[in-house]
């Protein structure tokens, strides 16, 4: 490849734009959404790009209708996405639960803004981390991805679509308000080399088809409406055919599958970045935009000779328990900077609970660095906190 060719792939791009382009490159051909700051650009770009490629875009009457429409379209065979922010994400929770329960692939992008309620529509926040895990009622595990750069927004949008198709579930892509609106120079990967996953289609005759066939890997083929496989889909507890059931044995099988299909594939799902962690004595655990500040803080601390490292989850749910235990084993202090009141902090404490009893041993601490006033955590905030804690 010539130098010119490489350079022509460098583009100046916004986070929201990267998400839309990544999703479309991953094959998304149906988008239903409702305008909300700071995610609206994703809908706008999809409304421009999808008709050009024969895809469909529709602006629905609200967020509830948007999640409903993408689940309907997904059952008809579409690769689907919607994008929203806090208030709309709250409205979508019942639909997200429906997608998980009925094992229907779809992607929901939540560009986080300050909350609760209408909150700070144009300011950053990381306070939806727990809602992405526990937002829908009932037990259902979540797959949530969280990038820290524009390029990674593009990559994780592709990954979100791939995982939703592979695991037949709703995948949430979390984005920071700042990242959604920030422009960065991005070198897009060669699309021919990007791995695109499509849902497995049944090959057996329609009369043998079970919409929820159980198998050891908990991943099963998915037929689409209008292709001869006439199946039933319900949000009620259901048997292997998808018909409603009250039987404890059939419900148990269904609930176990929802759980196991995530837990059996942690190696595939969990992604982390370890940054100067190999010899680190002090660690930072941060995600999204706070991890960018943390990276600079690590470099600053390293310059002054301190052994500081950063562990950053790209997949925040399922939570990277094993990675934390592995990397943090020999660390003295863990700093957790985040734009909320401790949503990651408590998870880190939970994950570390069995490894070292941090409360009884003075020398080891998990230290919060928190802001929820719409301002970002700066590298200086982290450095200053490190100086405070000896």
């Amino acid at each position, binding site marked *: 490849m010539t130098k010119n060719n490489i350079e022509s792939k460098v583009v100046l791009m916004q986070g929201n734009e990267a998400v839309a382009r990544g999703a479309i490159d991953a094959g998304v051909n149906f988008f239903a959404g409702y305008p909300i700051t700071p995610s609206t650009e994703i809908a706008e770009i999809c409304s421009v790009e999808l008709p050009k490629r024969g895809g*469909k875009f529709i602006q629905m009457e*609200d967020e509830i*209708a948007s999640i409903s*429409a993408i689940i309907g379209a997904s*059952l008809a065979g579409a690769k689907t996405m919607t994008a929203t922010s806090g208030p709309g994400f709250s409205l979508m929770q019942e*639909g997200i639960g429906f997608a998980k329960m009925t094992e229907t692939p779809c992607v929901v992008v939540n560009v986080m803004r300050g909350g609760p309620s209408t909150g700070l529509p144009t300011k950053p926040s990381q306070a939806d981390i727990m809602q992405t895990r526990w937002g829908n009622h009932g037990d259902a595990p979540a797959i949530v991805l969280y990038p820290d750069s524009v390029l990674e927004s593009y990559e994780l949008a592709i990954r979100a679509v791939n995982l939703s198709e592979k695991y037949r579930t709703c995948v949430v892509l979390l984005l920071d308000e700042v990242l959604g609106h920030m422009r960065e120079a991005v070198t897009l990967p060669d699309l021919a080399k990007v791995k695109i996953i499509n849902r497995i289609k049944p090959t057996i005759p329609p009369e043998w088809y079970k919409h929820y066939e159980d198998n050891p890997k908990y991943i099963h083929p998915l037929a689409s409406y*209008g292709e001869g496989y006439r199946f039933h*889909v319900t*949000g009620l507890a259901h048997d292997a055919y998808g018909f409603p059931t009250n039987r404890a044995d059939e419900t148990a099988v269904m609930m176990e599958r929802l759980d196991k299909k995530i837990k059996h594939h942690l190696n595939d799902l969990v992604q982390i970045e370890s940054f100067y962690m190999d010899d680190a004595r002090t660690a930072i655990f941060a995600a999204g935009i706070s991890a960018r500040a943390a990276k600079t803080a690590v470099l600053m601390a390293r310059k002054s000779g301190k052994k500081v490292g950063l562990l950053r989850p790209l997949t925040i749910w399922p939570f990277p328990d094993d990675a934390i235990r592995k990397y943090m084993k020999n660390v003295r202090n863990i700093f957790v900077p985040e734009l909320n009141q401790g949503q990651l902090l408590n998870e880190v404490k939970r994950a570390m609970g069995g490894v070292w009893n941090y409360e009884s041993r003075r020398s080891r601490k998990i230290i919060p660095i928190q802001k929820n006033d719409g301002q970002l955590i700066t590298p200086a905030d982290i450095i200053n906190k490190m100086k405070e804690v000896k």
Partner: protein
Amino acid sequence: MQKIPQKIIHTRYLRHRKKFPHVWCPGCSNGIVLGAIMRAIDELKWKRSNTAMVSGIGCSSRMPVYVDFNTLHSLHGRAIAYATGIKMFKPEMNVMVVTGDGDATAIGGNHFIHAARRNIDLTVILINNYIYGMTGGQYSPTTPTGDIATTTPYGNIDPVFDICELAMGAGATFVARTTAYHALEAQSFIKQALEHKGFSLVEIISACPVIYGKLNKKGDAIAMMNAMKKNAVSLKAWEKLPEDKLKGKIKRGILRNEIRPEYTDEYAKLVQKVQGGK
């Protein structure tokens, strides 16, 4: 009107080996409506694999599980939004929604009016039994003022929705109303609605003798059927009736049948324009 034996309907369109007996109470009109839908589809010779039935939550919304189509039993009030997704992605499919008065006009009112406004080619078959039956008899937007429900123990003070007027006001292009007593008329209206290109609504007044009937002393299923026979007035007769005699009567007939650009057609044109202009 071609008559087909019930048995053929059972074996051709119902999941008769898997899902029966059904959940509906004795005397419920939902079975009559289901029969009318099956016969209408048989007349149209629609392919089962190309037909989708979508519902929300409620008594009527249990219907999809019994029919051998592409079926979706979605969330309370959201059936029309789910159906919009299916129709939008696969316009070649026949998509119908079976819903009730509470599902479509209370919790799902927003989706109902906006689908009508878009004139997307969905057929909504709305079974109006004046009550929330599945949850045991609470008042709905169509429970007549003064009537008793478990949440209006002292009488309902809410004014009611005229669902057909609501749909027409929102822009629906085919609107018809009949009752479960007029089963063959229901079949004919449903057939015309399914054939109609655009948003169509068939409201079918139904009997809920076990809950609504009992709470309001309407008698058994037969008495409620007789009341429908007596009170549902055809359009022609309605116009001749003096105003003082219209009280308590139900207007039945095709209230609107017009052609307006259909949403998925318009989107296809838009796609063509965008791609052609490249």
